[in-house]
């Protein structure tokens, strides 16, 4: 519940882009759902053959965390590449401006 409220507040302050916000909202809703309907965890655990059902939650969180970190690495790489291109274009443009303004 607190997570959902926090995420909502971040979106309100425009600190979070909607695409990320959606993910965090979904995550908080799932957590909320699990705390209301605890038996669901046991059902999932039995389905995939895990004896101790809380470990399913742990596993899920690790997997989600892993993919999230991966996603951020990819985004960062793309951003730094774009940043490099922008800096290069800026240097070239600055040269042209200096040349034209004598």
């Amino acid at each position, binding site marked *: 519940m607190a997570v959902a409220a926090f995420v909502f507040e971040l979106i309100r302050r425009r600190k979070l882009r909607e695409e990320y916000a959606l993910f965090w909202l979904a995550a908080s809703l799932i957590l909320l759902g699990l705390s209301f309907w605890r038996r669901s965890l046991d059902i999932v655990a039995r389905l995939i053959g895990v004896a101790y059902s809380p470990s399913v939650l742990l596993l899920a969180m690790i997997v989600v965390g892993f993919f999230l970190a991966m996603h951020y690495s990819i985004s960062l790489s793309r951003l*730094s*590449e774009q940043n*490099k291109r922008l*800096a*290069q274009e*800026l*240097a*070239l443009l*600055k*040269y042209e401006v200096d040349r034209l303004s004598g």
Partner: protein
Amino acid sequence: MTPRLLFIVPALNEEANVGNVVHELLAAFPDANVVVVDDGSADRTATAAAAAGALVLRLPTNLGIGAAVQTGLLFADRHDYDIAVQFDADGQHRADQVPALIAPLIEDRCDAVIGSRFLLREGRYNASVPRRIGNAILNTTNALLLRKRFTDSTSGFRAYNRRATAFLAGSYAHDYPEPEAIVALERHRFRVEEVGILMRSREAGRSSITLIRSVYYMFKVLLAMLVHASRPKRKGQHESTNPNHLHHRQRGGGGIRFRADTTP
């Protein structure tokens, strides 16, 4: 017709050397242009270069040597230079070695030439032991990946023709790119050759590469080389950023796409 020649001099805090380097180049090649790419220097590198008669591109932040050279290649590509020569700002490279370096390009025997310190018997370059080991590993990797022997993969004394310039301006790697550029060029069926050249030992200042960093770079470059090699061989995607070179673009079905006007 003599080819239009551009010297690309990447410089980071080289105010002591860059002026002499520019003077030396312009004295030897009065018709050529020298562009100094100031990679976010804290000293007066840009002023010194401009005073010596170079064109100066100032990067707003430090992007690393790879990106700095690429900026120069972008400049060469957009201003239609026939040959781009990469030349160090620290005074290690010699202007009198340039004719030997660019000869294979002028004769159209290849697209990219690497100046090697280790090919000529006379004045053989004395590198430190770790540097030798690193170089040997990179050379061996290159040899294994490309089935072609390079003796000085890390050399920053090199020359590119228009096609190679356009290719590298579009996709040059970020840092310490020299060995990687060879793999990328070879994989895209560019003709890469080594030529023996002489070098000076460095003047003022010291190498920007320390031991720990060079080990890190080694692994990074090795990984990048392997990645390049694992991509399928293909004809060069000459993604020139020069609008006059649109016909060179091959990726994505021909550069600019027009929206088809569909009438309902």
